[in-house]
Structure formats: structure tokens, C-alpha cells
């Protein structure tokens, strides 16, 4: 009289842990031991101990993994996922996303900075020797070791320059708050005939006391504008006392501590955006950066 198939299956399942625990284990070790004997005939390097005799874990032990029946049940209901695993997954994913995004941004900035340094590209900036608003000589060497933000303009400028200089002052303050002394704000006049040190001093002090105003002879300024690829047009044949306006480029030139051009900031940048661009480039700078 054979029992119905369902009950036989259950009987087998119930019997399995206890029945297989010891016989299977002994059979297994015997099998290994014969292999060991066979191998022992040839000289060979000693095997790692874990291979020689795998510890025979009695399957019964698994039954005590959970303290209560409820615990075991809940474990089976939720599967291998727990809130800990989920949290770990989310944190790892967030971390990876953040890392890739920041790396991408860094590479983009690096590309901008590098693209202006390459061979065969027009070099912006270069050596110069001008005088500041206090009458002191200032050369490109004095600007090295710090980032500098160079702006070209003139004191008789009707609208753009004063606005941009106010923006520059704000940008400088924002950068200064985080990296004191790491940035030199420089204003170069395109109108050397009328903007001497005295005029520059009176003009710039209304924007920011730390602005460095540069002027020089017409030839020096012309060379400076050429080096920075700045377009400017001081009208020729100006009679003494005649008023005129100067047409010029209105970009801020961000220069790195070695005097290389990094990026141009324009009218489209708000002071906060501009300051962020500058601070991000400073973060990327690997060399020495002077402070205060």
C-alpha cells in the first residue's frame, strides 16, 4: 500500500536534514581521503589547509540561526533584502553619482583651462611692465603666485565699465571670503592719455580699495592690449581737451598663478556665478597658491 505522493514528499523533506547530515559528511571525507592517498604518491607542494579537510558543518546548526519562529518567518517573508541592504545600496548609488558628476565637472574645467595652453593656440597674456595707481612699477611677475582677474576699461566709460567694475568688486569679495588673498583684481586702462595714476586712484577707490589699476604709455598699453587680445580703439588725432569714448572688449580675463589664461568671464555671468567659476578653478589648482 503506497501512501499518496504528497505525503511521501513531505516525509522525505522532513527526514532529509537529519538523514543526510552525518552519512553525507562521512562519505564526503572518505572521498577526499582517497584523493589524498592517490596524490601522496607524487611529490607535490603542500596544499592549503582549507582544501585538505573541509570542516564538516553539521546542517543542524542552521536551525539555530534565528532565535524565535517569528524571526525566521519574517526572514523568509522579506527575502535577502533588509532595510540595511537597501540603505547601503542607496548610499552607494548616491556616492557614485556624486563622484561621477564631480569628476565630469572637474574634467570640463580642466579642458577649458588646458585648451588655452596648448601648442599652436594663441596665447593670451604675457610679460608687461606698467605703473599702478600709486605710481609703483607692476610687472607680470608681481601677479604670479595668485590668480588674477584682469579687466580693461577707461575712467570716462559711460555705462558698461562702471557696472562691470561693481560686478568685479562683488565677485572679488565673494572669492575673498573663501580664499583670502588668492585673487588679484586688476583694472587696465585703455585710455592712457587721460587715465594717469591719479585719475585711476580716484576712480577705482569708489569701486574697491584693493583694485590694482594699471596705466602706462600709449605704446605700453597697446602692447598690453595686444597680449591679451583686447580690441580697443582710442581715437587717433585727439586734440588736447577733446572728449571721446574708447571702444574696447568687455571680458574679465581669469589668469592662473603662472600667468596663463584660464577663462573669460562675460556679461552673462552674475557675480555669484563668476565667483563660483573662479573658486572652482582655484580648487583644481595643483601648484602653490599664495594666500593673503
Amino acid at each position: 500500500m503506497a501512501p499518496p505522493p504528497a505525503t511521501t514528499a513531505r516525509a522525505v523533506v522532513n527526514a532529509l536534514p537529519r538523514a543526510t547530515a552525518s552519512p553525507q559528511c562521512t562519505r564526503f571525507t572518505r572521498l577526499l581521503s582517497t584523493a589524498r592517498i592517490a596524490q601522496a604518491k607524487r611529490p607535490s607542494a603542500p596544499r592549503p589547509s582549507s582544501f585538505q579537510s573541509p570542516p564538516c558543518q553539521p546542517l543542524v546548526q542552521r536551525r539555530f540561526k534565528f532565535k524565535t519562529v517569528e524571526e525566521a518567518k519574517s526572514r523568509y517573508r522579506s527575502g535577502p533584502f533588509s532595510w540595511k541592504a537597501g540603505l547601503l545600496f542607496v548610499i552607494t548609488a548616491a556616492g557614485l553619482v556624486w563622484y561621477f558628476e564631480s569628476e565630469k565637472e572637474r574634467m570640463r574645467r580642466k579642458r577649458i583651462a588646458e585648451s588655452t595652453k596648448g601648442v599652436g593656440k594663441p596665447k593670451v597674456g604675457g610679460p608687461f611692465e606698467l605703473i599702478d595707481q600709486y605710481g609703483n612699477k607692476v610687472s607680470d611677475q608681481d601677479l604670479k603666485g595668485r590668480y588674477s582677474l584682469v579687466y580693461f576699461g577707461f575712467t570716462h566709460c559711460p555705462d558698461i565699465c562702471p557696472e562691470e567694475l561693481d560686478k568685479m568688486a562683488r565677485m572679488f569679495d565673494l572669492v575673498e571670503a573663501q580664499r583670502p588673498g588668492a585673487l588679484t583684481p586688476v583694472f587696465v586702462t585703455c585710455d592712457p592719455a587721460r587715465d594717469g595714476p591719479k585719475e585711476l586712484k580716484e576712480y577705482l577707490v569708489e569701486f574697491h580699495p584693493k583694485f590694482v589699476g594699471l596705466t602706462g604709455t600709449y605704446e605700453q598699453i597697446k602692447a598690453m592690449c595686444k597680449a591679451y587680445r583686447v580690441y580697443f580703439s582710442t581715437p587717433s588725432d585727439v586734440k588736447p581737451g577733446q572728449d571721446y569714448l574708447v571702444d574696447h572688449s568687455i571680458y574679465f580675463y581669469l589668469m592662473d598663478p603662472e600667468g596663463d589664461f584660464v577663462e573669460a568671464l562675460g556679461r552673462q555671468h552674475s557675480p555669484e556665478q563668476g565667483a563660483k567659476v573662479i573658486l572652482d578653478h582655484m580648487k583644481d589648482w595643483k601648484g602653490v597658491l599664495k594666500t593673503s
Partner: protein
Amino acid sequence: MGLLPGFLSTAPKSEAEKRADEVRTGAVAPTRAERARCWAARDAFYACLDAHGIVDTLNSEGRAAAARACPAEGAAFERDCAAQWVTYFKKWRVQDIQKKARLKELEAQGATRMDVQTDFTPRR
């Protein structure tokens, strides 16, 4: 007073008047306060021109129309700004209005707007 310029202009001028004269002729660069005054006068002049639908004040008819419609604003504009700036701002007005009209036209054709600024209000 204005009818006897030759007689009255010989009278000694005050410091403020002398300074204003220097700013007008472009002998000195205006200070921040002087710039602000000029810009305010300019904006008032522009507002008056806008109200009367006048764009170009550099050609003869535009100048006549502006003199008829906004005499006070025009005079204040020329008093508070350097002569060069007056010309510059008048030109700028024409160009800016043309630019805005062109941008509107392009946008109507489905062009994508770029982030550029065409007015004088500084960004904060």
C-alpha cells in the same frame, strides 16, 4: 538770464558749477554720484521718449520732436551727462530698440533665446 549769455558768463562760477562744466566737457571722469545722476536723467529722458513714441533723437526731425515733447528731460539729460555720453546714449537707444525688435522677430520665428542682457540694470 539765458538771453544775456555774454554778460553773465563772465561772472565767477561756483566750485560745483565748474565741476559740472568739467564733467560735461569730459575734462574729468565723473564720480559714482555724478554717474548715478546722469543715468537717472537719461532714464527720465528715455521714459519721456517712450511715452511719445520717439526712437531716434539724433536726426533733425527726431531732435525737433524730442525738443517739443520732452524739453525739460532733454535739458536735464544734457546738463547732467558729459556731451559724449549724451551722443552715446542716444545712439545706444536706437540700437537697443532695433536689437529688441529683431530679437522679438527671431523669437516669433522660433529661435532659441540666449542668456544675454541688453539693458542697463546690473545683475544681482
